[in-house]
């Protein structure tokens, strides 16, 4: 393995560079995946049948909390990568830990929201609108859930092996994933919630 010391650790080998580029291509496919969900959402938004409309079930408070929590977690994972680049392993792990805690808080609020929807009669079977709403939110939430486990395993691995070209590369790729989830949430926040409540 040839290590290029002029590059940050996560870019230091040819394999690492390829991994990062490969992950960007994967994110391109993820953009298209969420695009199909948003498409279906916009098409079925008004098909509420005898169920509730968006404005009746959305609440601004949980949405605000979710948005600011996810934005902050996107910031803290950025700080984690910065700490990694200046070789501050401990600070990096702290920032990663905060990121995952914020992610868990986000998920907790989203689960609360889903039970709320269920109680007000907005289930997967209620109408075309509620079906695509829950599918879109659920796909994002499933990504966050997956990210929590992924991040946790990365923390464990860094504690065990320290910062190596491999663990740095994995951490960087995980940070890309996490920022991407924040970007998707911005669009959900703007074009599902705010548009629905406008």
């Amino acid at each position, binding site marked *: 393995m040839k290590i290029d010391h002029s590059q940050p650790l996560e*870019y230091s080998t040819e394999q690492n*560079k390829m991994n*990062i*580029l490969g992950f*960007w*291509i994967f*994110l*391109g*496919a*993820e*953009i*298209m995946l*969420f*695009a*199909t969900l*948003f*498409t279906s959402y*916009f*098409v079925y938004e008004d098909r509420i049948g005898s169920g509730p409309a968006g404005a009746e079930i959305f609440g*601004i408070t949980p949405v*605000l909390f979710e*948005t*600011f929590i996810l*934005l*902050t977690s*996107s*910031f803290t*994972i*950025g*700080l984690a*990568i*910065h*700490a990694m680049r*200046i070789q*501050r392993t401990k*600070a990096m792990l702290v920032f990663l830990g905060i990121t995952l805690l914020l992610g868990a808080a986000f998920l907790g609020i989203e689960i609360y929201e889903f039970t709320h929807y269920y109680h007000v009669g907005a289930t997967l079977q209620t109408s075309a609108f509620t079906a695509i709403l829950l599918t879109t939110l659920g796909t994002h939430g499933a990504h966050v859930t997956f990210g929590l486990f992924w991040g946790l395993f990365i923390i464990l691995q860094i504690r065990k092996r320290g910062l190596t070209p491999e663990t740095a590369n994995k951490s960087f790729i995980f*940070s*890309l994933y996490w*920022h*991407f989830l*924040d*970007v998707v949430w*911005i*669009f959900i*926040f*703007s*074009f599902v919630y*705010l*548009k629905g*409540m*406008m």
Partner: protein
Amino acid sequence: MKELFPLKQVNGFIFSLLLTVIALSVYFMDLSFELGMTILLITAFVQATVQLVVFMHAGESEDKSAIYTSTLYGIIIALFTVFGSLLAMVWGYM
């Protein structure tokens, strides 16, 4: 401690909070649908760009043209899917 909070990232975070507050104006103020959607479109896409460039370090490496090309390809397909479907299935029947 200070070296752990680079100015670029802190500014990016403050800017993204600001964009969120601007987006919230469509909820708290009584705006027309068109104006509200314009605000949301601008804040959402600017926000996404901030994430991509400041936090995801998209333009830092030597393969940045490949990264931007593949991301832009994803975005173009996304926009065609969303707006093409809206045109064919919603707007055409209003």
